[in-house]
């Protein structure tokens, strides 16, 4: 008897996700033609049509009040529905079920379900939806491109192929403020080493004329990129949440190791391809690389994406898709880049440990903070543990993360510098600062501190970590 009285908590989850274009089935009876993709696919046809119909009605309804800015989200008791029109008349809709608590009832009555309606933040999930599209676009180009190339018959399978897999990697329960920023974590580096990397990039681009763009990462953090910011942002997201975690190297599990040259084949390096051929020596090896689409002045261009990694250093080489990549090219690249990158990686590693020793032991965990710079997309969080492919773990209570989200919403509304300090019911203090395109959020656990002490504490953080970027008192 007593054992059943357990409450059950459900996290937010993906109910459905669909892409439609109302102009594809304007006549009655043709509604199904509007639907280009629908997840879960096993939903009955009429139900699909019904749900798309509601979305259309709501878009239409909001146009009564503002013809140019239609709906972004619909709140209902049970779920949240997010709308995004990335290209003319193409709508992507994501429905997220609100978190809920199931409370068992006595006497065999069905359990009571309580929906927690304020738990899902619009800004966070709106950003997740936009990211879905950006990721699609990175690998497939725009919807319009597919339509031009082969009409609906081409677009539908493309959507299915991409979203079928991508949606499985969405972990809605652990989305937070970092998804709103969708920033890039930069690797802190001294000038000397930075110049070494730059000259390495120049040398490679000089020798391999085909390489159009290069990006250099260390330890999953960006050091150098020749791509446009927005392209790099989504490519970075792909690399750090999908590609790298899939290839974490067992032999380099301890990251800060010195160079231990071993003879592998006849080359003295650790370099290997993360995309393309797994083993160059394999006579069967295929030299096919993923294609990506990046912005150009007049639209977009299609590129091969070569990701090459040696120890903790990874380099992306992007080459025009019109060129066919051969075994010869890959071998040249491997021979040129492999040894240099191995050397460079161990240089960076040494430099990094040295710097750490000088600056003393890691003091960061004392402050839990998130920093984001809108100008260069730089982001830094001491709240999040290392990102993995599945979940991003945070070291604070989810409610506090949502308070950060609330403060971020307030900041987004007004285009001026602001500072907010709040004391939550749990006696945590949360501080948000916005100054000149930069945002900083700090969580302090000092139950008995007062406003003045909290302010002093944050000032100290700004002085040590951010060279007093934030001066607003």
């Amino acid at each position, binding site marked *: 008897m007593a054992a059943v009285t357990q409450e059950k908590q459900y996290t937010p989850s993906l109910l459905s996700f669909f892409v439609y274009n109302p102009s594809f089935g304007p006549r009655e009876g043709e509604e199904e033609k509007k639907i280009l993709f629908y997840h879960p696919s096993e939903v009955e046809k009429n139900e699909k049509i019904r749900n798309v119909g509601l979305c259309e009605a709501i878009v239409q309804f909001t146009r009564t009040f503002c013809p140019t800015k239609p709906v972004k989200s619909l709140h209902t008791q049970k779920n949240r529905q997010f709308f995004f029109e990335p290209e003319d008349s193409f709508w992507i809709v994501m429905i997220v079920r609100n978190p809920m608590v199931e409370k068992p009832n006595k006497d065999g009555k069905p359990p009571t379900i309580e929906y927690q309606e304020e738990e899902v933040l619009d800004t966070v999930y709106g950003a997740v939806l936009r990211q879905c599209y950006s990721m699609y676009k990175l690998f497939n180009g725009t919807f319009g491109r597919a339509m031009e190339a082969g009409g609906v018959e081409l677009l539908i399978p493309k959507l299915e192929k991409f979203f079928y897999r991508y949606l499985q990697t969405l972990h809605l329960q652990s989305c937070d403020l970092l998804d709103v920023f969708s920033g890039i974590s930069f690797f802190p580096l001294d000038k000397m080493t930075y110049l070494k990397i730059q000259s390495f990039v120049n040398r490679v681009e000089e020798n391999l004329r085909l390489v159009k763009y290069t990006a250099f990462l260390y330890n999953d953090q960006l050091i150098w990129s020749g791509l446009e910011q927005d392209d790099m942002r989504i490519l970075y997201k792909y690399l750090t949440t999908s590609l790298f975690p899939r290839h974490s190297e067992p032999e380099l599990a301890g990251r800060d190791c010195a160079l231990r040259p071993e003879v592998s084949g006849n080359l003295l390096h650790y370099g290997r391809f993360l995309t393309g051929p797994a083993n160059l020596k394999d006579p069967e090896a295929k030299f096919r690389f993923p294609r990506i689409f990046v912005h150009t002045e007049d639209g977009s261009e299609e590129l091969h994406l070569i990701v090459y990694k040696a120890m903790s250093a990874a380099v992306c080489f992007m080459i025009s898709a019109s060129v066919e990549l051969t075994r010869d090219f890959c071998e040249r690249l491997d021979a040129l880049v492999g040894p240099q990158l191995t050397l460079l990686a161990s240089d960076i590693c040494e430099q990094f440990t040295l710097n750490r020793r000088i600056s003393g032991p890691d003091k960061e965990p004392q402050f839990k903070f998130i920093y984001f710079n809108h100008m260069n997309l730089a982001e830094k969080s001491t709240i999040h543990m290392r990102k993995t492919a599945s979940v991003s773990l945070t070291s604070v209570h989810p409610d506090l993360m949502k308070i950060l989200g609330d403060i971020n919403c307030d900041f987004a509304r*007004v285009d001026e510098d602001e500072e*907010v300090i709040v004391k939550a*019911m749990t006696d945590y203090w949360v501080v948000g600062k916005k100054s000149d395109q930069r945002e900083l959020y700090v969580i302090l656990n000092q139950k008995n501190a007062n406003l003045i002490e909290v302010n002093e504490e944050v000032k100290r953080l700004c002085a040590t970590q951010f060279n007093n970027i934030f001066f607003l008192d």
Partner: protein
Amino acid sequence: MEGDVHSKGRASWDLGNLPHVEHLRIERPDSPTPDLVEGTEPGAGQQAAMFVHSRSVEDLTTEADRDAESRVEPQPVADGDPGSCETLGTSENGLQVEEKIIEVVQAPKESSWAESRTKEEDICSDGWRSHRKHVFVLSEAGKPIYSRYGTEEALSSTMGVMMALVSFVEADRNIIRSIHADGYNVVFLSKSPLVLVAVSRTCQSDKELVRELQYIYYQIVSLLTLTQLNHIFQHKQNYDLRRLLSGSEHLIDNLLRQLDRDPGLLLSAVTCLPLPSSYRDAVSASLQAAKAESLVFSILLAGERLVTLVRKKDQFLHHMDLHLVFNLVCSSSSSFREGEGWTPICLPKFNSAGFFHAHISYLEPASELCLILVSTDREDFFSLSDCKHRFLERLRKRNAYQALKEAVKTPSYSVDQVGILELRHFLYKSKSSGLFTSPELPGVYQSEEEQERLMGLYQELHSRLHHSTRPLLSIYRCGETENLMAWLTSGFELYLCLTPLVTKVQAVTAVNKLLKWIRKEEDRLFILSPLTY
């Protein structure tokens, strides 16, 4: 621990006697601290609270009926017009009887509201679209009942779509709450048999907008009673409620204006006319003495501020009901100035099933002072009229009248009187008494735009403090135009607006100084000894 004390205080207070809290009141500390027990903060009444009052906005969502059930009724307050409810809907005659009753309320308005309502608007124009806040009321059949801007006729298809959206989502055993777009929100509130919709370009949260829609809903109930409202739609789903409400739209219009401006509606509290306590007590005592058998509440208003309120023992007035009374008086002031008004009014939080009858009159035609005597008896006009005269007589005798008139004439008080240089404006609410105080708006916030902006800032702070799952204890916010501070304790709720360059040290000092000042002035700013008959 803190919460514990709080809830104990609340429980006993609800019962109307407060043994242990009263004991605590003997020592009222000089400067309140966050661990004050509710009932000892500045502004807390000394005997018992005047209103059925709640901590925040949650109670607005509880059903009025339940509220009424939990209280003992002195007499049945159901409308003394037995025929009207029964015959309603069965014959057109029945409806007309009701309409006449309401006309008493409406008769005087024509002049005042006709010019103020600019209904004829092109609903496809940018002007119509760019209104800060639209409010629509419709029936569950999708029939327009009220629109703040534009005629209901022009909007009937839009309202039809609204209803369709509500029922479409309902068909999934779900409830539509709101639609969010860049720069505006649409919020829905289903209160069978009505549906209310707000389209707002303000920064208010959904919860705040729903609260405002609740006010509008109760305003309509207050004109008709819930019983009658349900009755009408049960018999004729398609009924055009505008027939019953026509002429009362200005009440809703005015309430909406107040919601944008009056912090009392935000705080669920009422503000008082500053008056030395000796004079206020004299006024209260005079009101107390002028009682009648059927009298439940006697309320004396100065404009939109409360002078005093005397109630029947064990009967509490909900702040929402009081705001509806305020709204009735303020939106039709010209009519009651002429003589004595006698009007049915339903106080929905007290009892949504029946009408009270209110005797409304100004003490002098040119005066701001308005007396409202709420009675359960429809036929009691003359005895209430007599009450008024007895009250006036006593008031004059005690020569409190002159002081009262003086107080009405002088402006409330300016923030300079507090003597804190950095302080521009504040709102302070005593939780246990349900009263708040606030200085006049300083020059910077005098314009209508700035006034609404400041209210918007307070609204944002309020909704963050009272967030349903992530409530906050305090907020400090520095901006380029002002610094704001909000603080919620078990005893009070405080909002400060400070100059933009103030430091946190100065701000903390300002709060302490302000609380001391309020404690010092509390017998002038609040009603500390409310009376009962």
